[in-house]
């Protein structure tokens, strides 16, 4: 069951320039075709602007307005309102996209179809706890393309579905599927000492916190999720060689920073070197899932031959 779609708590109060800019976008939005009058169009767009840039300067709001996929936003709202023309357009343009994406995500025809059918039902509308039919299309805000949004929602549903199913899988099945249950590694004395040393942990935490969001994303994706360079490159829309260079530079830089902090914290250079032996980030991709309680990794979803587990 779907909850109520997000709506602004207060009536939108937008600047005059923004209001006129919204009005100017109406002719290109196909609103007339889908039976959306200019007033309603203004309300829909204003709600999106308030949601994402309500407290921002008007220039930022105008930039946001420019970046919105208004035609697709109106199409989604019109479908949600039950406009037949809009549904016809939606089916013509996005039905194939939806199913193709589902097949690509599930990598299995039956699962893909089930996934797409499920989302399709949600898009059409499911009664909420008040008995009101709520379409998932009400949640589309036009920030990205509608096709991309459908792919993202499908991916979320796939992850949720996997997790729901995974909870019901017996231990025997997991063992048969090759899941290993690594015992907690026995820590030796030196390691215990290292972990016990608050200064060591604090220095590492501080060094990580100093990194930019993108650098932390790179580290997490590569070392924790074991994504390939190509995967990460696709997500950040850069070439994989760029990711490789960045990771390499990051690893060197991180080691330098951590060592410096440890020295500042009073550790001896020899102790620093010993700890750095343990801190080799290149080792992070080994057996990381067993130690980090990361719930999902690519291998959790797909076998090596590409099929779904």
């Amino acid at each position: 069951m779907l909850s109520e779609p997000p709506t602004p708590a207060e009536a939108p109060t937008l600047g005059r320039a923004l209001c006129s800019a919204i009005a100017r976008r109406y002719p290109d939005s196909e609103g007339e075709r889908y039976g959306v009058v200019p007033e309603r169009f203004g309300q829909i767009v204003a709600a999106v602007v308030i949601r994402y840039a309500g407290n921002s300067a008007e220039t930022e709001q105008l930039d946001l307005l420019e970046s919105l996929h208004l035609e697709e936003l109106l199409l989604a709202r019109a479908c949600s309102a039950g406009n037949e023309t809009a549904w016809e357009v939606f089916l013509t343009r996005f039905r194939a996209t939806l199913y193709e994406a589902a097949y690509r995500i599930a990598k299995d025809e039956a699962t893909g179809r089930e996934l797409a059918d499920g989302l399709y039902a949600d898009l059409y509308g499911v009664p909420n706890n008040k008995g009101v039919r709520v379409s998932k299309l009400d949640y589309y805000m036009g920030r990205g393309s509608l096709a991309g949004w459908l792919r993202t929602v499908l991916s979320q549903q796939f992850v949720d579905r996997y997790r729901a199913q995974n909870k019901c899988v017996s231990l025997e099945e997991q063992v048969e599927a090759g899941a290993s249950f690594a015992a907690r590694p026995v820590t030796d004395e030196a390691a215990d000492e290292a972990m016990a040393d608050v200064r060591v942990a604090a220095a590492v935490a501080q060094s990580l916190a100093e990194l930019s969001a993108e650098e932390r994303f790179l580290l997490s994706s590569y070392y924790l999720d074991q994504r390939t360079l190509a995967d990460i490159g696709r997500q950040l829309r850069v070439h994989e060689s760029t990711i490789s260079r960045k990771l390499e530079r990051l690893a060197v830089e991180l080691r330098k920073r951590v060592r410096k902090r440890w020295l500042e914290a009073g550790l001896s250079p020899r102790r620093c070197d010993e700890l750095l032996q343990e801190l080799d980030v290149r080792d992070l991709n080994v057996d990381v899932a067993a130690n980090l309680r990361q719930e999902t990794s690519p291998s959790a979803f797909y076998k090596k031959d590409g099929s779904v587990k």
Partner: protein
Amino acid sequence: MKQPESNPLREELARSQQVGSHPDSDMLTAFGEGSLPAREREGVLDHLARCAQCREVLSIATHALPEPVELQPLPLLRPTNSTLRGWLPWLAAAVSVLIVSSALLLREQRKRGDETHSTVSTGAATNEIAQTPARLPRQLPPSEPNTETAPHKASSAVVRSEPTPRHPASSTPAVASAAAVPPAPQEQNVQTVSPQADLADSIGHAVIASRASSAKSAAPSGSRAEGLSTSLQQNQQDQAAKAKAVPPMSQVVEVQEAPTTQSNAAFAGAPSTSMMHKAATAGAMRPRWRINDLGQLERSFGNGGWQIVPTHETSKLHVVLVSGSEVWTGGENLRLEHSRDNGATWESITLPARNGYDHALTHIRFQTPQEGTIDSDDGISWKTTDGGKTWK
């Protein structure tokens, strides 16, 4: 390298994986599409660095993107002969100079021709035109008065007498005997060729091919073309024989339907699309395909424009699948169309209906070049194991 039993960095990274509220699907989509402003992008990245679930969703959504159309690089041809390789730059330079000078010459000639055109009232020097193919006369619609078009048609009669009409749509008024029309004084030419143009108009939208080889043996009869030839004989005795050789229309004129193939119609008005089409067929330029809001198949060669590609299908199309030069498309009424040459020609395939034909095709997939599946909106599937020749 030995896996350390305890790794402070790894543990700290894992500890940092504490998330707040997740960005909504819109934000993740916009992030994946690179359309977020810097401030919001940074915020999403910060969250992604902490949230394994959102990283997972983003990764799966990225994988679900359709495969990008990769342009196949054209093979670079290099001469293996070292002597030729040494001369190649000079040869290229010489060819470039030749091309540029030819273009300049042609332009100069055209300019001179235009001047002549304007000085001789509305007429054009026939022989000059004949020597300058670039000055093909414009084709006027039949509704324009003949008095105005006469000079143009006079010249067109000369130029279009070539045995291979390259522009079928613009070669309507060509008359077979025109090849034999001698260059005449301009004024006279205007007067005498006008009836010929009338005759050509009366033929309408037809392509008339000349048979120069058989023309010599044919004798003129009482046709209008004969009258034209006769008047020309009076002016120039030297070429009377040629004029006489004009055969009667019934013998020399072949009237054919103007070639209006679907592919021509598809590219009407598009500049140099025939070249692009050839290139696409040869695989040098791979077109992109889509189905528009009206359910019509469209193709783009990456020049920004989308052209409707007519198939045999009149009902709305829903899906299109492209693999190399093979294009499959289908839609309402279970209609399926297949092209093996990037949409140049199409074959209709009738799927065996199991639940009536009032349904639409929703998916076309090929797991291998031979094995494919088609689904319809009533849940029925057809499979092929022979590359689409038969569907069961």
